[in-house]
């Protein structure tokens, strides 16, 4: 009998090892401790595999010159979201890292050190509240982007349109003119890669209301006419339904779409302003004029004015398990404000007192007001919960791919029936979450 007991004991030990392994990394939030010398080694996780051996070590060299005795090592992660989410539960995730979007706001304290209160951080940095919970900020944005349409203005000019359309109908008419007068595909959805479809969710500012994120989860029917999802998803539907997008959405290719826009085979895409330098590079590489690529606001005006949402990119954070938090915080702050990374990437600098990049100054010249939409506070995290339980991924591509399928006649239903279904699924989950 002893044998069997030993054997069971082994099994139990294995169960225990796995159970603790799954939850080992997280612990209850405590007060942040950044005292101590700024010296020693830190490891920085980055999603920019393209810069990990080129530009990033250059920044590190400057930092090490400023703070002697420090050493910054980069750990590039190709599949950032997935790999780092797994790493988080192991407890080993570097000293400074980008907060994966899979971490819900109320879990931030389990993995990252609070960097200060929202008010303190907001005095110095933009996008302070995007990774904050309970008044505490856990991440600093590495740079910000504006949202809107990346267009090839040469093609639009051939169709007779030189100024950004002001309403969805005007925009559709413009796309139709592009279709008729040029050989270009008027609009490219990037359906196959999926993530470009998520930018339809970044247009919430067009209604000109700064509290949009707070009020959104309180609304049981966001797809009703006049509401934001009806405006944005409705425009996507109409574009595809009017056959103004690529003929076979299932075989699109993000890398391939860059030179297509650059050379004028495609006239427009909905993306963030971060795409401008990439598209211009692609245009240059293909022998076209990079100046053709410009950024236009979403075609909707409130009080006679365009509004475009600006938001932070990935937020850098200090890991809770770091053994060198003082240096980690120093690096993060230096990288965000002094390294020049944001300017090099042509994104909006996180420090409030630094200037906008040139591309966005042109964008502002179209008369658009750039708006930061503060994250929800009373309804903090509710929108995520509704998304999860309704399985309507506003921030993703699954339900929008279905929308495109319906619009092009590849799935049953029409605009009204699908929006009604979305409203129903959303409000069922919403009433559960908000009760």
């Amino acid at each position, binding site marked *: 009998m002893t*044998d069997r007991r030993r*054997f069971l004991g*082994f*099994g139990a030990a*294995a*169960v225990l090892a*796995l*159970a603790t392994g*799954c*939850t080992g990394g*997280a*612990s209850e939030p405590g007060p942040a401790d950044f005292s101590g010398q700024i010296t020693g080694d830190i490891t920085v996780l980055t999603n920019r595999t393209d810069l990990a051996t080129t530009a990033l070590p250059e920044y590190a060299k400057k930092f090490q010159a400023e703070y002697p005795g420090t050493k910054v090592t980069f750990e590039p992660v190709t599949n950032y979201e*997935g790999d780092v*989410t797994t790493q*988080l*539960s192991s407890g080993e995730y570097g000293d400074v890292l980008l907060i994966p979007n*899979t*971490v*819900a706001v109320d*879990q931030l304290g*389990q993995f990252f050190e609070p960097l200060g209160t929202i008010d303190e951080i907001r005095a110095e940095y933009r996008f302070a509240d995007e990774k904050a919970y309970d008044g505490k900020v856990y991440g600093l944005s590495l740079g910000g982007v504006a949202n809107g349409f990346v267009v090839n203005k040469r093609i639009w000019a051939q169709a007779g349109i030189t100024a950004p359309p002001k309403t969805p109908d005007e925009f559709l008419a413009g796309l139709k003119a592009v279709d008729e007068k040029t050989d270009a595909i008027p609009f490219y959805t990037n*359906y*196959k890669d*999926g993530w470009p479809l998520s930018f339809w969710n970044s247009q919430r500012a067009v209604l000109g209301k700064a509290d949009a994120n707070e009020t959104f989860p309180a609304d049981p029917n966001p797809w009703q006419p006049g509401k934001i999802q009806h405006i944005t998803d409705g425009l996507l539907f109409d574009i595809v339904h009017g056959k103004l997008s690529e*003929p*076979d*959405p*299932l*075989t699109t290719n993000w890398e391939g779409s860059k030179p297509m826009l650059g050379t004028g085979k495609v006239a427009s895409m909905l993306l963030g302003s971060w795409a401008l330098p990439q598209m211009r590079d692609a245009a240059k590489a293909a022998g076209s004029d990079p100046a053709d690529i410009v950024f236009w606001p979403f075609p909707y005006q409130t009080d006679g004015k365009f509004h475009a949402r600006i938001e932070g990119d990935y937020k850098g954070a200090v890991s809770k398990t770091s053994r060198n938090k003082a240096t980690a915080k120093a690096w993060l702050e230096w990288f965000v404000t002094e390294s020049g990374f944001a300017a090099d990437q042509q994104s909006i600098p996180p420090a409030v007192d630094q200037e906008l990049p040139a591309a966005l100054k042109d964008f502002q010249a179209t008369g658009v007001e750039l708006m930061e939409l503060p994250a929800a506070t009373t309804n903090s995290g509710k929108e995520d919960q509704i*998304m*999860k*339980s309704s*399985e309507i*991924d506003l921030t*993703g*591509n*699954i339900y929008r*791919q*279905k929308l495109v*399928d319906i619009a092009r006649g*590849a*799935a049953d239903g029409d605009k009204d029936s699908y929006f009604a279904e979305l409203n129903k699924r959303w409000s069922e989950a919403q009433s559960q979450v908000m009760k």
Partner: protein
Amino acid sequence: MTLGQRRWMPWLYLLPALGLLITFTYVPVGNMLLYSFTSWDGLDVTMEPAGLDNYVRVFTDERYWRVFLVSGYYFAASFVQIAIALYFAVILSFETRFRNLFKGILFFPYLLNGVAVGFVFLYLFQPGGTLDTVLGGIGLGEHTRFWLGDPDVANISLAGTSVWRFTGLSFVLFLGAIQSIPGEVYEAAEIDGAGRWHQFRHIIVPGIRRIISLSFILAISGSLSVFEIPFIMTGGANGTRTFVVQAYETAFQFRQIGLASAMAVVLLIVVLIVTWVQRRLVPDEEVQLT
């Protein structure tokens, strides 16, 4: 060796294998069962118990069980796959010119990584891609369509890719089984005047019945759990979402590990039931060739 030693010695030899089996099979499955009764998001320190909620949801929400219907395409395709594999296995087990070359060609797709297969076929099915060019070249240009974009053919295209990839596996299984049939049996049959068809019908098929039956079991469980081909080629869009793709999205896109675990448990049970039913219908008989 004392009596005591004799008792625990077998366990000692079994220990490594048992350890691996328990750590990497039974403990994870046990964990999965545990998760399926919680509303865990895969990250939080606490796991909220959810009772049977996840299972109720899998069975009552149409969106979860409807995706099983897509498996029908792959199931139908597996018959094509078995037929092709059997045909070539029979032909190539007799003297044929370039026999080994053809064996290699048929088995080769199975050696390719599933991700690579997905990408290769993505280009094949593109408008103006390889398939359209070939059809145009042989005068069937009017039959080209959006192989992945047209919802009526998207699943057929994907199932076709699956046939291309897995025919090699069925083929080697059949080939091995056929070659284990002693050569004298054929000689005797030939002397008795049996043609190729009769040899196939009365010697080969009964001789490899077990492998054929195994192939069908693999085909059913395989078609219920299709993942990489639709995931890579369409991401489950355009009505090609299979049960496993849906479970993946639930787990990693919507962070509902509990619900996704329940889906995995349901899939496991369905596969077990189907296999059991099949074993009842087609009993495993001893093969008698003499």
